[in-house]
């Protein structure tokens, strides 16, 4: 135990800063990072389902618009999109606060990726089951709601969980547009105390904690959804 006490004595200041900053890191995590993620992912899902169904149902015009949207969003960096909306749009009179801008950009960005996930999941539902639905008298919307969408959600669930976990970490990019989320908060403490390594490890561990919780929820969710598959 001698060496442990010595280690503490030698690094007393750094360790104290790290311990004292924990609430200052976790609080913006719980009040900014998580709400930012939940809001953005919810909107992203709405966009994704709409865009995927437009393509699945081959709605003319809207379908081309959807492809264009996905092409543009997936083809440009998220950070550039954040800058464009937050720093760029004010010059045409659209001024948004950082949090709002972040929610808008994350929703639109993630929506494009999740739309592709949803589209592939919809297309994975065997056509024969859709025909069977029509043959027992269901109409298009009944077939979608009762047969296609439940199975598509099952297929899309793991990759969508992936996207959600990815988004938790991507929200750290909002630090670039003045949003005081978890990473921005950590940076401030690091600069004020000249402690970097310990604090950045600390914030990384908190992100890891959040992801772990989500992974756990994903596993529970998958088990529930697996009722009708052989896995």
């Amino acid at each position, binding site marked *: 135990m001698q060496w442990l006490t010595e280690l503490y004595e030698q690094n007393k200041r750094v360790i104290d800063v790290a311990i004292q900053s924990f609430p200052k890191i976790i609080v913006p995590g719980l009040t900014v990072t998580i709400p930012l993620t939940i809001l953005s992912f919810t909107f992203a899902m709405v966009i994704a389902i709409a865009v995927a169904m437009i393509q699945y149902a081959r709605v003319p015009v809207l379908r081309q618009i959807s492809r264009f949207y996905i092409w543009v969003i997936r083809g440009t960096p998220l950070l550039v999109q954040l800058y464009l909306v937050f720093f760029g749009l004010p010059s045409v009179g659209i001024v948004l606060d950082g949090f709002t801008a972040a929610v808008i950009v994350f929703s639109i960005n993630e929506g494009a990726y999740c739309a592709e996930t949803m589209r592939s999941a919809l297309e994975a539902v*065997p056509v*024969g*089951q859709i*025909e*069977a*639905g*029509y*043959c*027992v*008298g*269901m*109409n298009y919307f*009944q077939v979608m709601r*009762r*047969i296609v969408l*439940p*199975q598509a959600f*099952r297929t899309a669930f793991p990759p969508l969980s992936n996207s959600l976990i990815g988004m938790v970490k991507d929200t750290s990019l909002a630090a670039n547009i003045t949003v005081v989320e978890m990473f921005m908060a950590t940076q401030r403490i690091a600069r004020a105390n000249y402690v970097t390594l310990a604090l950045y490890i600390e914030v990384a561990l908190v992100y890891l904690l959040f992801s772990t919780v989500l992974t756990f929820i994903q596993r529970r969710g998958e088990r529930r959804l697996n*009722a*009708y*598959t*052989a896995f």
Partner: protein
Amino acid sequence: MENAIIKVKGLKKTFGELEVLKEIDLTVNRGDVVAVLGSSGSGKTTLLRCLNFLERADEGKLSFDGRSFDLASIKKAEIAEIRAKTGFVFQNYNLFANKTALKNVTEGLIIARRVPRKEAEEKGLELLRKVGLEDKRDYYPYQLSGGQQQRIAIARAIAADPEIIYFDEPTSALDPELIGEVLTVMRELAEEGRTMLVVTHEMSFAENVSNRVIFMENGAILEEAPSNEFFRNTKNERVRAFLNMISKEEEK
């Protein structure tokens, strides 16, 4: 009441350049069990799919239960009206993978026909009993064998008491030892006097259960005859060649 349940006239269907069905005329009377035979690619399945609008015919008239429709320009509501009176059994069963056996049977009744749940479930159980699978009511399709899945698919197809049941090669995807159980169910339906149009490769079914056989080749009906006549003394050379080929296959 008119005796014909369906009367098809001049049904044509092309896929691109390929003429899949050329001017098909066909009548099925109430209580008929009609077997449609022919080598693969002869258009049998497409014919069945056109009759239930899973494919849209290019031309032709359909008289269904006394009402006339134009196959090419038929409206959605009319399609729904016809489908409400038909059942369809697929080669690959196509059970709803996310529904249990019982729900597969009741789904159409509850969702499409607004039958009260309790009533639909009673009907569903009765049908599962009929196909010998009442004990599998809560099983999902992946937990069932192909033969069991197809029997449930048949129960689903007859749930709403259709005027006619279309069977699209109902035993072709099954392991040989599972074919019998499906054919048994189909024979029972025939004995109940249900009207059936069956695309099949099962000669025993065509010969012993169906009362009429239609032989198709290259998108046309080559021969149509009562089944015993068809199998014993057909004059058509192509039919004889086909039957010879099949019997050789079966000897192997």
